[in-house]
């Protein structure tokens, strides 16, 4: 056991080193191409040093795009989380209901199948017409993008329930309602989490698209505005911030999944 633990630890350290090297190589190549070789002018491709400088400035300054970095992050998070949470709250139960109740399935599925292939970005113009360029329109767009994967995965998850498990529950005297809550939903939980993770990713990505088209604050807006000002350093700051926050989301959801999904992903 102890030797095994040591071996595992060694392996983990090794993997961490490899991952760190990967990031180092990326930033190293970037640095050499810009600060050393000056392959492109600064306003097209800034060096990492310039980006870090811009980042530090942006922590306190509102120039040139009207808000500090935190201001933009807060605006984006507000939109993304509002839309995402609504999408999850509506999408997951709907997916479960569609999979469990045949009538709901028959009623909703045709409509859902019609809406599903429409790319989220196609919703943007309509949403702007309906809700203006405030929180509402963007949250509504995010809602659409988050909603779809939540429904699909919850649906697939419930459908994975093995008949034999339902039989066992039935012979134990469980009612259909109890079977949904004690057998089908626990079976579906891993896929429900997959849906939540995928939709968080798409929500966060859609957000930037939405903000680039219609906004006056937020990370996507920051990117768009700084393009017209030829401030590539600030564009990169915003991009890296988006990447970082996305990563934090994923890590957070993974931790949550580990806590809730017991017994492995497969029986």
């Amino acid at each position, binding site marked *: 056991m102890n030797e095994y633990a040591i071996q595992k630890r060694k392996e983990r350290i090794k993997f961490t080193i490899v991952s760190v090297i990967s990031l180092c190589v990326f930033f190293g190549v970037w640095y050499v191409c810009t600060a050393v070789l000056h392959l492109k002018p600064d306003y097209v491709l800034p060096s990492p040093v310039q980006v870090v400088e811009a980042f530090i400035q942006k922590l306190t300054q509102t120039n040139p795009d009207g808000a500090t970095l935190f201001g933009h992050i807060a605006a984006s998070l507000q939109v993304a989380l509002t839309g995402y949470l609504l999408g999850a709250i509506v999408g997951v139960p709907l997916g479960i209901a569609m999979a469990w109740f045949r009538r709901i399935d028959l009623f909703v599925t045709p409509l859902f199948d019609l809406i599903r292939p429409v790319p989220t970005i196609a919703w943007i113009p309509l949403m702007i017409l309906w809700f203006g360029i405030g929180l509402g329109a963007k949250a509504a767009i995010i809602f659409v993008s988050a909603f779809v994967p939540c429904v699909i995965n919850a649906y697939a998850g419930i459908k994975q329930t093995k008949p034999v498990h339902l039989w066992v529950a039935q*012979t134990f005297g469980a009612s259909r309602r109890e079977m949904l809550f004690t057998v089908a939903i626990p079976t579906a939980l891993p896929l429900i989490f997959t849906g939540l993770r995928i939709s968080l990713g798409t929500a966060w990505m859609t957000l930037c698209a939405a903000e680039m088209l219609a906004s006056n604050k937020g990370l996507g807006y920051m990117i768009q505005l700084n393009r017209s000002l030829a401030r590539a350093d600030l564009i990169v700051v915003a991009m890296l911030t988006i990447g970082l926050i996305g990563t934090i989301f994923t890590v957070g959801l993974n931790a949550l999944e580990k806590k809730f999904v017991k017994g492995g992903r497969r029986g």
Partner: protein
Amino acid sequence: MEHHGGVNKTPIISLDHVSKTYLSVHKTNEVVRDVSLDVQENEFVVLFGPGQCGKTTLINLIAGLQLPTSGEVKVDGKTVTAPGPDRGVVYQTTALFPFCTVMGNVEFGPKSRGVPKKQRRERAQYFIDLVGLQGFEKSFPNRLSGGMRQRVGIARAYANDPKVMLMDEPFGHLDAQTRYMMEEELEKIWQKEKRTVVFVTNNSEEAVYLADRIIILTNTPTRIKHEIKVDLPRPRVYSDPAFLEIRRQIEEICDDTL
């Protein structure tokens, strides 16, 4: 009332001219044809038959998961119309809930019936100990070996305190060695906690080792072909000549089918 195994006692399970035919768009598929069978209280009956015969269907009919096309299934004098807690079923390994711990699986039945926590825990613990899994209460099924999973399955069925235990090839997926071990284990458990058992298998050795009575079934549509009483003292010895003789008989009867 004491158990005598007498002939006149009311059977706990009674199949009266039971047939089952599945309908599909293109054809009808007759799986069980006119099976009549009585099982006495605390009797260990083995349904023995070739791979594709309707053994599982018979188990499901008794469990109430399917209803007969004609005829009647009675358990404890009442006609079976739906599954119920008086009939516990042990399936093949995959039937454990992967998202529940061993304890969660074993107490699932009592929990569904609303037994208070303390009581059902105690009961579950008793059967977990009985099948020799103490210390694994908090493990999830994916951490258990095939034999251990099947022990959980047996404990789970017992914990619901059924009158009748239905076992559908519970050891079918196990390797030979584990299978022998589990057969011995089941025999011991059953001796300690007697229940009426209907056990399905296609392994004649397993059948002779466990059964009070072996019902030999034909290929589909399944009918009862023959019945053998096994009176050997328990625990039985696989290499005992009398044991081997019964196995020979079974194989002879089965060969006739071909």
